[in-house]
């Protein structure tokens, strides 16, 4: 089952394991310059507000209530990253493992293929928690993603529109499959007692109706600036995932200009620009997991026109796209549990 809890999506699987819980959050961040340069990971400025589609059905695009799920507000050309945090089970010295499929406009963000329910291995079309703490964009090359950036659906920027020629779905789609209970018990047996003092690092890495404004309300994700981020391979066997128990969710992206009219709340403020952030000398991040192998990039996604290239071809140049020089880079090594909090607690 999936619940909304403090602006996060909590996937739980009580039929599989009492503590199989994965929290997915949607982080506000700065938009990287889209100029061919590779940047480190940008910070998180806190989560986007999340709401049930059913609560505002009358104020939303007609097809959204059919999709079910949730909605969140994004500004035009605003960026986002996704955080995946499985509950840590002290008795097993691991976080419960999950396979997570992510699509934007029903285009798989890892493989570039169309949405399909089964998990695919070759090429891998999902990420694995706890190994993968974050996903910031489309997998365009081994070790490189293009940032998730929201643009109004129907203007041709989104990965979906570029690949299918249609502005049909927009938003984000998730499928989460827990590890099978037997596989979990075998791989991560209960630890009776642990006496050693020191870090557990070595163990954790195994693994009411308002008139709608005129601007288009639905947003889709387009590939923005490049950043260094590896998408790690799945260290488990395919039959260890309990796909029959998988849960899925449609996360709609509503143009922030419509948020107040639809929900009655103010949308979050506009994030700072990459330029202002870099000038202030605030931290950027790099993440390394020496034990995990990165999967290859998707040729399909690599072929997409980036946001800036598309904007130039439409003669609507992207604002705030000047190159920046990231100053302080905080290197985070796997496992990311505590550091997760560091990248997300953006009080700057």
């Amino acid at each position: 089952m999936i619940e909304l809890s403090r602006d996060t999506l909590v996937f739980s699987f009580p039929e599989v394991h009492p503590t199989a819980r994965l929290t997915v959050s949607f982080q506000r961040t700065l938009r990287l310059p889209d100029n061919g340069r590779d940047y480190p990971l940008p910070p998180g400025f806190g989560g986007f507000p999340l709401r049930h589609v059913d609560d505002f059905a009358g104020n939303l695009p007609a097809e959204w209530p059919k999709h079910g799920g949730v909605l969140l507000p994004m500004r035009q050309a605003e960026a986002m990253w996704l955080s995946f945090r499985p509950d840590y089970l002290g008795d097993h010295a691991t976080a419960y493992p999950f396979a997570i499929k992510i699509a934007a406009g029903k285009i798989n963000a890892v493989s570039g293929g169309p949405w399909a329910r089964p998990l695919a291995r070759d090429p891998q079309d999902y990420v694995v928690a706890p190994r993968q703490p974050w996903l910031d964009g489309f997998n365009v090359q081994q070790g490189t993603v293009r940032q998730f950036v929201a643009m109004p659906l129907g203007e041709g920027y989104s990965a979906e529109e570029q690949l299918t020629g249609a502005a049909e779905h927009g938003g984000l789609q998730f499928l989460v499959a827990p590890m099978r209970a037997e596989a979990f018990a075998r791989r991560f047996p209960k630890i009776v007692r642990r006496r050693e003092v020191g870090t557990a690092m070595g163990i954790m890495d195994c693994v009411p109706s308002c008139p709608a404004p005129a601007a288009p309300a639905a947003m889709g994700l387009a590939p923005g600036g490049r950043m260094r981020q590896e998408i790690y391979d799945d260290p488990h066997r395919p039959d260890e995932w309990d796909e029959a128990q998988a849960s899925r969710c449609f996360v709609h992206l509503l143009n922030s200009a419509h948020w107040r009219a639809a929900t009655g709340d103010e949308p979050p403020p506009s994030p700072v620009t990459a330029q202002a952030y870099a000038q202030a000398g605030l931290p950027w991040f790099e993440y390394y997991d020496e034990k995990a192998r990165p999967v290859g990039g998707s040729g399909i996604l690599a072929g997409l026109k980036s946001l800036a290239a598309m904007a130039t071809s439409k003669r609507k140049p992207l604002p705030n796209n000047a190159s920046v020089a990231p100053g302080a880079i905080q290197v985070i090594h796997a496992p990311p549990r505590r550091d997760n909090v560091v990248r997300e607690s953006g009080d700057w």
Partner: protein
Amino acid sequence: MPAPFGPFLRRQRERLRTQRGEDFSVRQVAGRAGLEPSYLSKIERALQPPPGEAAVRALARELELDPDVLLALAGKVSSDLQKVILRRPQLFAQLIRELKNQPDHAVLRVVREVRDGDW
């Protein structure tokens, strides 16, 4: 009545320290939660009352505890819940009184799931 908050905090911190080491010393936990170590130490020994909501939340995060449970132990109700209740006080007061004697499984059924549709 003995104050349960501080000793509970200390037991949890010590448990994590045994399992995972000095990241869970008073000094380290206090540092990450933005508190003075001496203040945290006094809270743990119940020489000081529980801190404010933000600090309780920070401690819950650092010690891998449920923030609502820790807030309850501190005798507080989370500010987001207070807002929810204050917006519709009669309705929520009635709801809570209705639910207070229900078994957990009946209460859990009230938890709202995100609905999946056709797409």
